[in-house]
């Protein structure tokens, strides 16, 4: 058991070796000088040695105070780091959530873009064809012209019919008159020939 604890002691000593060159030696020197001082006889030397020992003691106490402060500081730094670590973890989780939100938004936006592009494509084709209002107006105008022209045509045809009928009446009256004149002439000729016949018969 002595060997084990010795090992541990050696290990610890080697570990603390960073500062041990100064402090450890100082403590050893203090112990040695204390023993020397106890064994020394003379008064003035003893007093100066006593002063020297006090100063080394205060130096040791000073370095111990320093290490305690450093230890405190390390503990507080650890706490600080723990806090920062937790904060960072929280913000990572929040960022993950934001990322998934944004992904959803991207999908939505892509869908919108797709719809918009389809709409644009259809709109382009539709633009190729002429405007509906214009074609309607053109149709109306053409319709009106058609009506107007057919109106005129009807009028002209009516007039034509009327003239034709009038000419017909005129021609038929002329014909009748001609017939009557011819009939009259024939009658008068027939009467003359009858009269000459009667005269010749009367002479005989």
């Amino acid at each position, binding site marked *: 058991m002595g060997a084990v604890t010795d090992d541990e002691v050696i290990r610890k000593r080697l570990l603390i070796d960073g500062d041990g060159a100064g402090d450890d030696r100082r403590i050893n020197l203090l112990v040695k000088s204390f023993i020397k001082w106890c064994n020394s006889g003379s008064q003035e030397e003893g007093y100066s040695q006593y002063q020297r020992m006090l100063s080394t003691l205060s130096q040791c106490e000073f370095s111990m105070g320093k290490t305690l402060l450093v230890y405190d500081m390390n503990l507080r730094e650890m706490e600080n780091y723990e806090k920062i670590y937790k904060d960072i973890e929280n913000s990572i989780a929040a960022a993950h959530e934001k990322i998934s939100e944004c992904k959803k938004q991207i*999908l939505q936006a*892509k*869908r919108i*873009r*797709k719809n918009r*592009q*389809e709409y*644009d*494509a*259809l709109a*382009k*084709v539709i633009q190729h064809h002429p405007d509906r209002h214009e074609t309607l107006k053109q149709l109306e105008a053409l319709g009106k012209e058609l009506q107007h022209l057919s109106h005129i045509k009807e009028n002209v045809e009516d007039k034509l019919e009327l003239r034709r009928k009038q000419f017909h009446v005129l021609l038929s009256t002329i014909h009748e008159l001609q017939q009557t004149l011819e009939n009259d002439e024939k009658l008068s000729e027939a009467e003359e020939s009858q009269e000459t016949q009667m005269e010749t018969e009367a002479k005989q």
Partner: protein
Amino acid sequence: MAPAEQAVRRSLELLHMSVFSQSVSPCGRYLAAGNNYGEIAIFSLSAALSSEAKEESKKPVVSFTAHDGPVYALVSTDRQLLSASDGEIKAWNWAEIVKKGCKEAWSRRPPLRSSLEVPEINSLQLNTKVGQLAGAAGGDCAVRVMDLESGAFTHELRGHRDYVHCLALRDQLHQCLSGGEDGTVRLWDLRTGAQVQVIEVHKYEECSRPQNGKWIRCLATDSDWMVCGGGPALTLWHLRSVTPHHRLPRCRPQQHVLFYQDLLLAGGQGPAVHHLQLSGEVKARIPCTPRAVLSLCLNERSPEHKVLTAAGSSPKIDVFTNLGYRAFSLAFA
């Protein structure tokens, strides 16, 4: 065969490998890719995307030979992976595949007109609401609709005059669109099996590029809008009025296109994936390893592994975690 010869043979195979199709598992953690040698490889996306990913996690978890011919199309239902090749459709249970059991659950052959030609099945689309599978058969110009529960082929939609390359589904209207080599996009009603409309894409001046031909290789639809491309330029169409809108700017023939949020992702004969906005502008052009991109797959089934994978004429499959750049590549061997 001596191991050295095998190694040489394998490296030649890798040189000529093209990955034609990809599909994501229902849980979203695995990606299945089919190549032109008939092999299907399953990659674990969760392992490859995790922070301790190593070289090994970028190789397939399991890889097996599914068909004799190339695997042209892959699609996943809730529990199964369906793969299509020359004239047959096979189903594999995801739970078994992940545990490295490679037995197929069932296999069906669509009824063929003549038994001489075996037409390849170019594309599969799943209509989950009704439990139907619509597969495009290339060689004999028909689109066949299969009922998943009974396994019977219900409709055969004929009308195309040449190979059918691609399919897209318009869920709300129970329609499917098919595009083919003859340059037409045809809309079919899935309930009656009748052809609803024909759009002859190459006849519209805005999008036709006669120097490339009139074939339609890729279709994507959003119920109101459709994008189709191939020989004619990649154009956005409004389906109700059947008018082409924007011709998406000059690029080589596109092989696969997807709608994603407000973008169109397209890949084709250049080694790049294009991001295009619906208004027609090119938002980004991202280079990738395959020299020609034949298949794009977006994993929407699992929010943690939401990636875009691009595969094509290369044994590597590029994975884009953020759509803006290529994160890493999965290798097929």
